[in-house]
């Protein structure tokens, strides 16, 4: 029975920063093993929402439950259940790839073996001796993903994981995530402003703008079974009068 309970439940959450209302009354529910994309332009409130789910920010109002638990008092447990890749991917430049992974693995009381496993999973094996400062953008993003995968998380939160990457690097990341979907029951919440990414990876898409959810559903639900709308961008224009990438 517990398998059907949502892994993430967000109920009527609000968050403001001074005069900016970043998130306004957002509610969503994510099932086990589900890949959900939160799609919206810059400033839509995606990162703030995900940071609240991650426990980095606290909502002004509303309730957030992860695996049925609130953050307060359950941080230690929930941190072990979640894998995270933040929007600005920063590492210690003077560490090697393998050293970075071993360091983060040690935080979860995992050994070198697990670090090597995720290196293989994310295609970083041949770069294991490279210093982080010498990695390309795509490789750094793969490293971020590798770190997020270390603890075999039940929930992965990826905040714009392919922003700034060239199309090839982006596809590499997608391939890793698709493999993850096939091989595990990990639920994924992905924020992006690339509609192609949301369409490619996610079975459930939430469209956000100016702190509110405009529309949500599967790709068929959003675009229509007969594809009355060709792209999510067209849907977005229909909802807001603006382009998604504007």
């Amino acid at each position, binding site marked *: 029975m517990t398998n059907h309970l949502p892994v993430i439940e967000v109920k009527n959450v609000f968050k403001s920063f001074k005069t900016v209302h970043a998130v306004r009354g957002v509610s969503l529910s994510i099932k086990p093993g589900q890949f959900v994309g939160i799609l919206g332009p810059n400033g839509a409130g995606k990162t703030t929402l995900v940071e609240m789910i991650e426990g980095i920010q606290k909502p002004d109002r509303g309730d957030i439950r992860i695996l049925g638990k609130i953050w307060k008092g359950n941080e230690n447990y929930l*941190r072990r259940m979640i894998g995270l890749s933040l929007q600005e991917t920063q590492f210690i430049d003077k560490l090697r790839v393998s050293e970075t992974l071993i360091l983060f693995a040690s935080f979860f009381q995992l050994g070198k073996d697990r670090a090597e496993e995720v290196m293989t999973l994310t295609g970083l094996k041949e770069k294991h001796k490279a210093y982080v400062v010498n990695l390309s953008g795509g490789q750094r993003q793969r490293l971020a993903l590798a770190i997020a995968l270390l603890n075999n998380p039940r929930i992965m939160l990826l905040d714009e994981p392919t922003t700034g990457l060239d199309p090839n690097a982006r596809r590499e990341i997608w391939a890793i995530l698709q493999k993850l979907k096939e091989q595990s029951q990990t639920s994924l919440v992905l924020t992006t402003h690339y509609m192609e990414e949301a369409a490619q990876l996610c079975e459930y898409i939430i469209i956000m703008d100016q702190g509110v959810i405009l529309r949500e559903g599967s790709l068929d639900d959003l675009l229509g079974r007969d594809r009355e709308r060709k792209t999510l961008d067209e849907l977005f224009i229909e909802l807001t009068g603006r382009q998604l990438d504007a």
Partner: protein
Amino acid sequence: MIREPGVLFWGIVFPILMSLGLGLAFTKKKDVIVSIAVIGKEDKQAMKKDTLSFTGDFLPHMQAEPTRDKDGNRTFTLFAPDEKLGNTTFIFREMNWNKALVLLKRGNLNLVLDEDKGKPVYHFDPVNPEAQLAYLKLTRVFGMKAHEPGKENQEIKPLMVQGTRYIDFLVPGLIAMGIMMSCMWGISYGIIEKRNRKLLRRMIATPIKKSYFLVSLITVRFVMNLTEGGLLFLFSWMAFGISIQGSIMALLALFIAGNIAFAGLSILISCHTSNTEIGNGLINLVVMPMMVLSGIFFSYHNFPEWSIPFIRKLPLTMMADGLRSVFIEGAGMMDVAMPVLVMTMTGIICFSVGLKIFKWH
């Protein structure tokens, strides 16, 4: 300049503050105070083989004002006015040789006065200009002829006691200052810079406790400080013959306590801000006054009397004074127990408060 307040501080405010601090210490005072130890005739036990007994009657003949300190030793003050060259106040303090040597090493005395067949004998470091000046002024007050270069002089006994050189004074202070700088810049600035570069933010996603993270930084810094302090001492020993006259355990206790104090302080300073400019400013606000005031490069007794009690309570002063007492005065564990305790408590309190309000981002 308004957009770069750091430039405003370093370019304008800081030089003024440095001038103020150093000016207070080194502005020539109108009245000069010369401190002289007078070896009491009762001190037969502590006499070195080359010293003589002192009658104790020599000074009352000079119509000085006698007082007694808490140990019953006599103190005489003599005011010698001089409109052209400045007034001089001579403070003669009766004491034994051991105490005289300790005060000499601390920089609290200019010379030691003894007596031989009714004539004064002056013990001082001949390369110390302040001691030389004290001798010349004293001979004038006594109405005697000063030493003439090239002529034999029995009244001057050069005092070459280990621990009275400037380098003996400097090295323990440098070790203390090294610990402070290493902690403040290594831990404090390191944390602020990591927070600024969003490196700490990533730690939120892990189950690691803040205390574990901070203690690991402190431990690494401690090991580095041990290495750096050891190397500095090794160099000083080889180049200048510096040695440790006191207890090694006391030295270790001071070292640990000093690290705890400055590590705690550095955690407190760095617990919140991610702005490296603000961090820079906060660290310098703590470090720079102590560097000037705490007696690292010169004795803090150069500062006004009213400031001395405050200066003594600074962590760097406690550490430098403690290290000096072990290096050159032969101090043991009991002698350094209080500064060790105070520094340790300071560190623990600062660390606890810093940990409570520490932010990963």
